[in-house]
């Protein structure tokens, strides 16, 4: 079992840059040339780790080029940390290979599962918040941090259902994970708003309970709106449109507590041309700059 302090110590390395407290973008290969030639320098790029687990070819060539110019964040979507079964050690070894190859400033994963009985569902599926799941998730995160030799950030989920087995609030559950494993947190504010709407609580209450001191990165994305069986709004974390104005307001509110923090714009479906995605990043940069002034230049998370 790794010692949290030892793992944290391991991340202090002169060769690995930190993420700046600026806006970053989810990297899409079709944007590579536009990003490289743009006078606007995006603060950082984030990639899904699984897209770079092939052996060679264009993906690695392009990402190697981007990594020369921009800080990189590696965001795993397939480790299935919430899985009732043990971690897929082969997949963890692949993640380790990506992290070793690119030496990213940040590594993050999800509080979710995606594999069951050797079937991969390609989605981030929910877990009950109970003692058994807590122990399992902590064990898995210990294993990941031990294998990678560094801390990871864990992202709060967007969910559409809740479990009878749940005995803890999501924020308590996440706080307990961070306390036990020493991992940092990735706060996805769109996920907060989606889950709050879907389960009928106030996003502001959730954020007030959230251990914001441990937040080292923020995610922002667009969501779609549907309805549940009773005609109540059911929000879907679709990543296919601009960030909603309510989520921007919540972001402003969060930054007042955290200070400037690396902030990713995620846009994974119906991906627009770079200028549209850039506009979202510039909006985030403007809000960050405002909080930078109020924080008197103190920087958080880098």
């Amino acid at each position, binding site marked *: 079992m790794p010692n949290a302090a030892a793992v944290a110590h391991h991340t202090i390395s002169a060769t690995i840059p930190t993420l700046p407290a600026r806006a970053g973008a989810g990297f899409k290969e079709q944007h590579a040339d536009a990003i490289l030639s743009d006078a606007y320098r995006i603060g950082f790029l984030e990639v899904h780790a699984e897209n770079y687990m092939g052996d060679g*070819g264009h993906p690695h060539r392009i990402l190697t080029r981007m990594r020369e110019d921009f800080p990189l964040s590696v965001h795993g979507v*397939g480790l299935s940390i919430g899985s009732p079964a043990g971690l897929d050690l082969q997949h963890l070894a692949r993640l380790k290979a990506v992290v070793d190859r690119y030496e990213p400033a940040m590594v993050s994963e999800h509080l979710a599962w995606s594999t069951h009985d050797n079937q*991969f569902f390609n989605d981030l599926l929910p877990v009950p918040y109970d003692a058994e799941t807590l122990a399992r998730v902590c064990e898995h995160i210990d294993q990941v941090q031990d294998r990678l030799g560094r801390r990871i950030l864990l992202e709060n989920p967007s969910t*559409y*259902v809740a479990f009878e087995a749940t005995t803890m609030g999501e924020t308590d559950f996440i706080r307990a994970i961070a306390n036990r494993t020493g991992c940092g947190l990735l706060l996805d504010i769109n996920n907060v708003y989606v889950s709050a709407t879907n389960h009928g609580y106030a996003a502001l209450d959730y954020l007030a309970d959230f251990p914001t001191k441990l937040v080292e990165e923020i995610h922002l994305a667009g969501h779609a709106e*549907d309805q549940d069986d009773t005609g109540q709004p059911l929000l879907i974390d679709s990543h296919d449109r601009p960030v909603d104005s309510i989520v921007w307001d919540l972001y402003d509110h969060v930054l007042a507590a955290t200070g400037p923090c690396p902030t990713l714009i995620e846009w994974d479906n119906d991906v627009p041309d770079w200028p549209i995605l850039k506009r979202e990043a510039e909006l985030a940069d403007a809000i960050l700059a405002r909080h930078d002034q109020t924080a008197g230049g103190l920087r958080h998370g880098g």
Partner: protein
Amino acid sequence: MAAEPVASGAFAAALLDPALSVPDGLTKRAGDTNARRFAVYRNNVMVSLTDALASIFLTVQNLVGEEFFRAMARLYIRAHPPRSPLIFTYGGDFAAFISAFPPARDLPFLADTARLERLWLDSFHSTDSRSLDPAALAAIPPDDLGQLRFNAHPATRILRCGHAAATIVNRDRAGEPLTDVNPMQAEDALVTRPAFDVKVQLLPPGGYAFLKALLEQQTLAEACEAAFAETAKSDLAALLGIALSSGAFSGLDYVCANNGAEP
């Protein structure tokens, strides 16, 4: 209280099986059956996997149209869910599924097209390697040529098709019309990726047997025999030209008798 459905596997089972009801053990708000809520997960899984197949089997989708493709993909996904979180490796048995799929019976070339597109993506993600310098052969004494063996480039694949899959894939991906293509024409295809771009080319008579032998590390002499065993129409100069210039190989496995160094 019902068994917790993540640990019991009930949640997972219901994701891909529309005949199963929403799993027990989920909290219900007043008047809510969770049907539309659980449907979000079902939809996420099905749409993301269908999109993944559509991005791998682009030409198959173009041949049958989006509606047919997505209906076929849904049945395939339920029968053959992915086993790996590396979604770009998905669909290894999609071609076999298509050949046994009754509604595609009138399109016998569809399975070969899928087979070739799967190899295309394997090649795309393969390990980088240098390509054989065609001039390397000049350094080898003529008497030794027959015993020469070639090292395959990691991105090289060959495929024997009973249909015109190589022409169909090349034309379709270049945005060219398929109207004058006879899909029932058998073709042998060579897939290479000398640098980063995948290339599919048709092989001339004897080419498949020739390259198959070389890729299996048989000697050049054995490869020539294999080509002629298949067809007397084999043009050895042309076949050797393909082996040297296509990028199918990364080097020669030849130890110089004089100094033991690689040429």
